[in-house]
């Protein structure tokens, strides 16, 4: 059988039902076999969107999403998508066409050295040189993308390798000598972690994206409740813990909740689960670890000690580690005291900020529109975001109730991610409502995915927080550059209602909270994508704000 046929068969064996892609000269043989296969092709209008769709699909289903692109510019167009998925540990497989083996290195038409270009932004890259290698390469690709700390895998297939015939052997299992994705959590270290937590006066749990990736929601909740420890999250970990829970304080970081940043700074011991201590979360590394005992659980040993000094490290899948911790805790007689001074203080601080944090005036302030969205949207609905002010407002004002339903490009911060990722999420879970909380600047970057959403019957809601500006940059220019505003004004262009309608989608402008509620309901009922254009005050800032390079304790509050 041909390499291209083997590729489709191998994908089918991995359970792939959909691929997102765009054909071109160098991947036509695989498209011809895709035509004959049972796999559904979802056509995009730009390869970057195909990669983000596969990424969104992967985050929601926790199975690798697959995207196809041709050689040369097709391949370079997915690089941002690979980097985005890799930065957020999202399982993804990108299959690119390549010029025939004999043409590689001769600067052929639409040749790009995608193996070299993508190297720093993928977990692994393959370039099979013989058709017969394809079944094993695909098996290995999924194994690498989905296990351990998940990530992006590239499979670059020269055109002749797609066309050539070979005897194919489809392995059921693969082993890779230099790849050991799982470590069993160490019992002794876990015991030490428990001792440290129990002897702390002001313990806190910091839940990161790893909790969501490993689906350790109930384990996290058990630990928090058993030990009565308040939970903050990173931005990527938002929604790892129900944000309406009595112990929830919300995300810390540059635009963290005031109470979360405040209490994180006061804590004397942190159980950090599945987080890499990003600079956006911790402020400054030196200040963060001052007077703080750090217990770090992570699947990736290279994260231990990378950014913060760790006192106890438990390496392994965080779900497995938390389960061991629960088992060990159950053997102990934990005394629950009613006069827990720390929890009392935590409650006071939280209640103070929930009542006293000033929000921007006006009916359509970020806080009010996002609370309206929460009010109307079913709690199981999946939410993605773009990147910018709206994203940080979502972090501040949109509570995630159902764990693992909130996804954002947090590591790379890729504008244009949210909409295609929402379409990918809808592909994985057509039974759920999917909303992209968007800003106009980000939405502009991939808004042509409206065509995909409409034509492929994947309706999602674009909740467009529209200030007709690159709002976050504008905020920094207002705050740090004495209002020297440059390159941020979108000048009322385009008309998003007309834009949506031109693609056959539904466009609604909401100019009051009442209209907004109705628009969301209309979107939830719609068979096509709905763009809700919500004009907001372009002067509204995201606050609180921890300026870059400053510690969490120095957060700027609304005046």
């Amino acid at each position: 059988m041909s390499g291209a046929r083997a590729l489709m068969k191998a994908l089918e064996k991995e359970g792939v039902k959909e691929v997102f892609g765009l054909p071109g000269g160098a991947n036509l043989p695989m498209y011809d076999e895709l035509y004959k296969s049972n796999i559904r092709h979802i056509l995009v209008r730009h390869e970057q969107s195909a990669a983000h769709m596969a990424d969104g699909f992967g985050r929601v289903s926790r199975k690798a999403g697959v995207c196809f692109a041709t050689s040369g510019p097709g391949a370079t167009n997915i690089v941002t998508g690979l980097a985005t998925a890799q930065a957020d540990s999202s399982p993804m497989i990108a299959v690119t066409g390549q010029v025939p083996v004999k043409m590689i290195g001769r600067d052929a038409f639409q040749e790009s050295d995608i193996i070299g270009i993508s190297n720093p932004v993928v977990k692994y890259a393959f370039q099979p040189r013989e058709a017969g290698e394809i079944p094993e390469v695909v098996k290995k690709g999924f194994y690498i993308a989905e296990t351990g700390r998940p990530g992006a895998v590239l499979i670059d297939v020269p055109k002749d390798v797609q066309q050539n015939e070979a005897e194919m052997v489809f392995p059921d299992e693969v082993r890779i000598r230099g790849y050991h994705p799982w470590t069993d959590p160490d019992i002794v270290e876990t015991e030490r972690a428990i001792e440290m937590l129990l002897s702390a006066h002001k313990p806190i749990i910091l839940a990161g994206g790893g909790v969501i990736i490993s689906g350790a929601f109930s384990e996290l909740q058990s630990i928090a409740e058993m030990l009565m420890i308040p939970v903050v999250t990173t931005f990527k970990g938002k929604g790892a813990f129900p944000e309406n829970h009595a112990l929830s304080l919300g995300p810390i970081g540059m635009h963290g909740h005031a109470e979360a940043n405040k209490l994180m700074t006061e804590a004397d011991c942190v159980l950090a689960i599945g987080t890499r201590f990003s600079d956006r979360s911790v402020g400054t590394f030196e200040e963060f670890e001052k007077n703080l005992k750090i217990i770090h659980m992570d699947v990736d040993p290279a994260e231990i000690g990378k950014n913060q000094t760790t006192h106890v490290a438990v390496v392994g899948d965080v779900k497995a580690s938390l389960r061991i911790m629960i088992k060990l805790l159950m053997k102990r007689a934990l005394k629950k005291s009613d006069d827990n001074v720390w929890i009392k203080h935590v409650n006071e601080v939280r209640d103070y900020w929930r009542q006293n944090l000033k929000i921007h005036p006006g009916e359509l302030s970020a806080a009010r529109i996002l609370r309206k969205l929460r009010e109307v949207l079913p709690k199981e609905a999946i939410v993605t975001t773009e990147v910018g002010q709206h994203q940080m407002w979502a972090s501040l004002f949109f509570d995630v109730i159902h764990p693992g339903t909130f996804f954002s490009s947090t590591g790379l911060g890729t504008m244009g991610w949210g909409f295609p990722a929402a379409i990918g999420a809808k592909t994985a879970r057509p039974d759920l409502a999917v909303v992209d909380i968007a800003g106009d600047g980000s939405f502009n970057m991939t808004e042509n995915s409206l065509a995909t959403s409409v034509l492929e019957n994947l309706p999602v809601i674009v909740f467009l927080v529209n200030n007709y500006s690159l709002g976050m940059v504008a905020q920094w220019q207002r705050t740090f550059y004495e209002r020297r505003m440059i390159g941020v004004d979108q000048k009322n262009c385009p008309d998003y209602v007309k834009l949506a309608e031109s693609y056959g989608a539904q466009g609604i402008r909401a100019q009051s909270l009442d209209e907004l509620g109705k628009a969301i309901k209309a979107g939830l009922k719609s068979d096509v994508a709905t763009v809700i254009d919500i004009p907001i005050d372009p002067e509204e800032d995201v606050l609180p704000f921890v300026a870059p390079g400053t510690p969490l304790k120095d957060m700027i509050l609304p005046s």
Partner: protein
Amino acid sequence: MWAILSILVENKPGVLFKVTNMFRSRNFNIDSISVGITENPEYSRMTITTYGDEKQIQQIVKQLDKMIDTIEVKRLDEHKTVYRELVLFKIKVSKAADSMEINKLANAYGAKVHDAKKESIMVELTATPDQISAFEELIRPFGILEIARTGIAALQRTGA
């Protein structure tokens, strides 16, 4: 701090690129590097020397370990390791006495003399980097025309 890393890797195209690219992209430095096939033709051994504080060296080891094409990463203790580097010097000969002098120094360091010409001499020295530096200082007054170094090869002593 100086560290010698011995890295067993898959012997296939692109692995050297991946390893060096990791150093570059994570802002680490490579002081010297040597690569060669091992007793098992499926593997190559890279010997990399690098500088950094303890935390950086630990990160380098972990990042190397994390790479899928690395089989084994060892940080060698220089006191329990035999490590050598080969260097070729082309040294200027200005007068007849220089030639004698250089020959004497080479002898003292166990270096071999090649390609002795009227205007220059080539000397081959296999030694530790410290010894090489010492030798280099001694011959510098004659005028060093060219240097080629291989980077370190290292193996841990048995039982160490």
